[in-house]
């Protein structure tokens, strides 16, 4: 296990390094670094001084090393717009995004698991067909458009829910959370549901496939033959076994949920990392773009590593293969 862990850690480091090269090349080599890193308001003398100070007259590989060194010290530049360290700016907005992503995952499991279980246990019923057709729609609907429609129905026409923002927040451990207040929850409901839409379909399909496969297993037949009640067979024997793959996939999807929150945050003006990056791209606040990309890459590599480790802990076969 420790050898496997070490090897995966080493691989992750390599990927991180590769991605840092890509981001560096993307921002420093394709674009004009002078324009990217120096405020456009600077005059000629300031400009030249800044080029010297930033080392932009050095060869590219030396520039990369200093970029990497600064990044390792947590210095990814200052935002032109906010005039704050880019890293700090993003970390401030991270709780909002995480809150939204976890809210969406929770909703996806809450709605997806029961529906999937139902569709798997009674595959030929009318209800199951409705559920499955609905799940196809969930895959096909463009997220941002559904978000707009939700705003139109629930905020504009019915006036039940607020359309934008986070609402009242509560400070816990120095971070602001909105899911702890009623107003915050009301603000969270629509964006979280919007972000969850795709995942609900995914959970339904996974659960249904899992149930249908598991129902044919010998141990389920044996449990039935033992005379256990259908409820016990379903909830203890079947449900427990399908939970592993479903939870693994949902865990894997955490990354893509955070990524797709870019869209949802823009629609609902949710003040998270995603909204920040879109705003930054639109005003060409490049230090923030670089910082965001580096953080998101780090986040993804960590998530992928954790999922792999969790998987090998849950499923002994994965471990054996990697020996």
């Amino acid at each position, binding site marked *: 296990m420790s050898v496997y862990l070490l090897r995966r850690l080493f691989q992750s480091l390599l*990927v991180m390094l*590769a991605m840092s090269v890509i*981001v560096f090349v*993307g*921002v420093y080599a*394709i*674009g004009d670094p002078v324009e990217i890193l120096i405020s456009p308001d600077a005059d000629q003398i300031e400009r030249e001084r800044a080029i010297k100070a930033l080392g932009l007259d050095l060869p590219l590989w030396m520039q990369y090393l200093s970029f990497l060194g600064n990044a390792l010290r947590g210095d990814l530049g200052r935002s032109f717009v906010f005039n704050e360290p880019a890293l700090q700016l993003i970390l401030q907005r991270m709780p909002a995004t995480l809150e939204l992503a976890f809210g969406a995952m929770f909703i996806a499991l809450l709605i997806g698991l029961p529906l999937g279980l139902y569709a798997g246990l009674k595959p030929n019923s009318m209800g199951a067909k409705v559920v499955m057709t609905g799940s*196809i*729609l969930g*895959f*096909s*609907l*463009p*997220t*941002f*458009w559904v978000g*707009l*429609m939700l*705003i*139109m129905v629930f*905020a*504009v*026409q019915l006036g039940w829910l607020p*359309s934008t923002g986070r609402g009242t927040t509560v400070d816990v451990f120095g971070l602001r959370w909105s899911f702890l207040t009623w107003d915050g929850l009301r603000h969270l409901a629509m964006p979280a549901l919007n972000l969850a839409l795709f995942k609900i379909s995914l959970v339904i399909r996974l659960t249904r496939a899992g149930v249908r496969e598991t129902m044919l297993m010998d141990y389920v037949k044996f449990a039935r033959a033992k005379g256990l009640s259908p409820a016990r067979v379903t909830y203890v024997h079947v449900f427990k076994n399908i939970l592993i793959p479903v939870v693994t996939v949902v865990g894997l999807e955490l*990354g*893509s949920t955070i*990524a*797709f929150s*870019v*869209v949802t945050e*823009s*629609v609902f003006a949710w003040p998270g990392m995603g909204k920040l*990056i*879109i705003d930054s*791209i*639109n005003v060409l606040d490049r230090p923030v*773009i670089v910082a965001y*990309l580096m953080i*998101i*890459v780090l986040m*993804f590599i960590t998530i*992928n590593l954790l999922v792999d480790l969790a998987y090998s802990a849950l499923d002994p076969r994965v471990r054996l293969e990697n020996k």
Partner: protein
Amino acid sequence: MSATTAPVPTPVVVQPPKVETPFRRMASEFCESKTAVVGLVIFAIIVLIAVFAPLITPQNPYDLAQLDIMDGRMEPGTVGGAGFTYWLGTDDQGRDMLSGIMYGLRISLLVGAGSAIIACAFGASLGLLAAYAGKRTDTVIMRLVDLQLSFPSILAALMILAFLGKGVFNVVLALVIVEWAYYARTVRGTALVERRREYIEAAQCLALPTHRVIFRHLLPNCLPPLIVVGTMQIARAIALEATLSFLGLGVPITEPSLGLLISNGYEYMLSGKYWISFYPGIALLVTIVSINLVGDQLRDVLNPRLKK
């Protein structure tokens, strides 16, 4: 025929014997699902609308001379100053939404299909190469695929467009970079099995050049899964392009796709003017669903494991 009862045998028209080509078999199996046929018909209509948009739209939405600012934000069904009815309403500049959607479909389909075809050619070639060459080449290509697939497509596209900036070409490029890995993985999977078959060995024994073995012998036998993935990826590409354009990172304002039309209506949404965003969204949804329906049935038809 009446040939048996007639006293004089009339010359019987000899029907050419119906050869069952793989394509014919596929087509007849495809038609077994009514929903899939409906999907195909709808998609065909959408393509026709997009192609002939300049001929059938009541207005050229990009010709400023034809726009009347007085007709701005009119409700669906109002008759405008130019004398024709705005069936789907108008946007803030007095542009007929119906015409806008038809022109928007052109951009959306062009970007979606274009990127899918380029990504397919690129990805499939790399996948074939990986499977055929094996060893190091395979490892390097597949690690790249894994790396690409471990990042959500929206994020990778966002990254690329953040570097390159807006534009139709840049969006296509970003979509190609995001999508090639799906094709590469699919083709490699099939090609790994196929390349161990006797016909490949036979082709190699004939001392055919490698590119001929790969593209004329190996590729045709890897096509079925590629077609399925390709269909689904067109739908994904269209959706992704719409999302990027909605976020303001996709196509420029001079070439509005459906996503950009929806984005334009965003600010009017809150004042209850729903149609500017609603109808382009419906067009997008119908396009994506129809492609997905076709893809779903193709997957069943082309999957050898499901053969009766």
